[in-house]
């Protein structure tokens, strides 16, 4: 009797502790999400929200509870004029625009290279898993590609021309190879294609084959065709975006289902109650002759569907990552900084959901 009383006391103490723990966790999340981050820079605010989300478990879409506070930076690149400072048509009436006054091609190349590196760092250098899709993890739902548009860069060609800056001569790749990141002893290119899991894609024609860690060849696709304009046409606005997509292997999806079933099953049987009763009844049906056949049939259909769906998802992922990774790596997923034309069709090629604040 004494022992039972003690046991009951222990379990109620544990229950209260768990409740208190979860409530404090909830309050902590609420406080963090409600905190006024205005005093911090947009970079820090975004990076903090990335870290916060990354620290949450990859289960039950829990990561969604920590929203990314990443705003798209709007940059207008214009010639460095003392007077007659013009705006960029794309951001005509937009309130928060950063102006980059440049005097040479070099400065435009530097700006774009730095924006790419900043975007990559801000988003956790591809080391933080930012998205979890419970249905895709179990191989039963569709996989989606999530993006944060770090910056939009527009050009005022009129003032740039006055300063002798020709957008069609911009070569960001060359700049990234030949210039070091300020304060570091490595080039932009080495940083973005070195030993970090980084992948870059600036699109469109130039393909640089590089050796990856396993000795295989990966193609890094770098060019800035997007802003190279034909004579007389307007320069296109460029978007620097961070894309992340991943999906488990077929075996991984099966394992996820298996572990979850094992966990739920154990909890049900240990916990007892009506759920355990239902589970026991279901199991006893599966033990009878026809019941066993029906159970085997249902299990086969379910596993086949899951495996086919997981394979299809891997195909979709390979479509998104095929230009920065090869083989199984491309099918597993990737985190990429891409430079694309700011155009819905171009963005849609890589992003099914945009998480940043426009």
């Amino acid at each position, binding site marked *: 009797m004494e022992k039972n009383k003690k046991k009951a006391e222990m*379990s109620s103490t544990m229950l209260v502790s768990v*409740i208190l723990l979860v409530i404090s966790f909830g309050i902590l999340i609420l406080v963090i999400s409600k905190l006024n981050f205005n005093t911090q820079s947009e970079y820090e605010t975004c990076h903090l929200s990335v870290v916060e989300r990354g620290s949450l478990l990859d289960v039950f879409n829990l990561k969604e*509870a920590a*929203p990314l506070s990443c705003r798209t930076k709007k940059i207008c690149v214009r010639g460095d004029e003392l007077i007659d400072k013009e705006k960029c048509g794309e951001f005509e*009436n937009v309130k928060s625009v950063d102006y980059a006054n440049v005097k040479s091609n070099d400065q435009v190349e530097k700006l774009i290279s730095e924006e790419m590196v900043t975007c990559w760092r801000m988003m956790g250098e591809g080391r933080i898993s930012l998205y979890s899709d419970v249905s895709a993890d179990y191989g039963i739902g569709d996989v989606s590609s999530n993006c944060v*548009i770090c910056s939009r860069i527009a050009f005022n060609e009129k003032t740039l021309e006055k300063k002798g800056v020709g957008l069609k001569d911009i070569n960001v790749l060359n700049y990234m190879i030949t210039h070091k990141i300020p304060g570091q002893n490595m080039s932009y290119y080495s940083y973005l294609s070195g030993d970090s899991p980084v992948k870059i894609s600036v699109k469109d024609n130039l393909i640089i084959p590089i050796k990856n860690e396993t000795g295989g060849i990966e193609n890094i696709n770098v060019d800035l065709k997007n802003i190279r304009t034909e004579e007389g046409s307007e320069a296109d606005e460029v978007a620097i975006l961070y894309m992340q997509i991943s999906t488990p292997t077929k075996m991984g999806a099966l394992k996820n289902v298996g572990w979850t079933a094992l966990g739920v099953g154990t909890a049900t049987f240990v*916990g007892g109650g009506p759920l355990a009763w239902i589970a026991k009844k279901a199991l006893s049906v599966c033990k009878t002759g026809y019941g066993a056949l029906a159970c085997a049939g249902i299990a086969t259909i379910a596993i086949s569907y899951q495996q086919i769906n997981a394979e299809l998802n891997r195909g979709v992922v390979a479509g998104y990552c095929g230009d920065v990774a090869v083989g199984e790596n491309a099918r597993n997923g990737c985190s990429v900084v891409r430079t694309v034309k700011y155009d*819905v*069709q171009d963005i849609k090629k890589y992003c099914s959901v945009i998480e940043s604040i426009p």
Partner: protein
Amino acid sequence: MQDRNIKMNKRGEGVNLLGEDVVKMIISIIGIAILVFLVYLIYQSATQNRRLEQAEMTLEGLTSTINSMEEIEVKNYAIESPKDWNIVYFQLDESSPNKCFGKDCLCICEGNSIEECNKGACSSFGNIIFYLGDDRKISLEDAPLEITINKNKNKITINKNE
């Protein structure tokens, strides 16, 4: 007889224990339900806040684009987010969200009802009349997407580009 009594007592204790277990189980289930509800509330509030912020910024961009248009002009505009929300138009002569302050207004909201748009982002455009198709809304379910804004004096038609 004594033996029988002991057995009965033992059985009685057993019954008591089972009752205790049921009470504990019910308390646990209620506790877990409260926790799940709490987590759901936090989740909902977090995602709603982010989407509202996206809606506000999208509407701000749309408003400045419309305001910068000539008397007669056609312009394309890219809408990035919030996915699965709607652009809804409310006219002066009908009931509208509080945020419209009794004027014609354009809202970006999760659904298309007044209640839902009260929690969304709204902006009024003076005497401009909008036409968003027969159901007076544009779904953002396939965002990012592009819309065409066709301005003809004080009449604006917005279409989704396929």
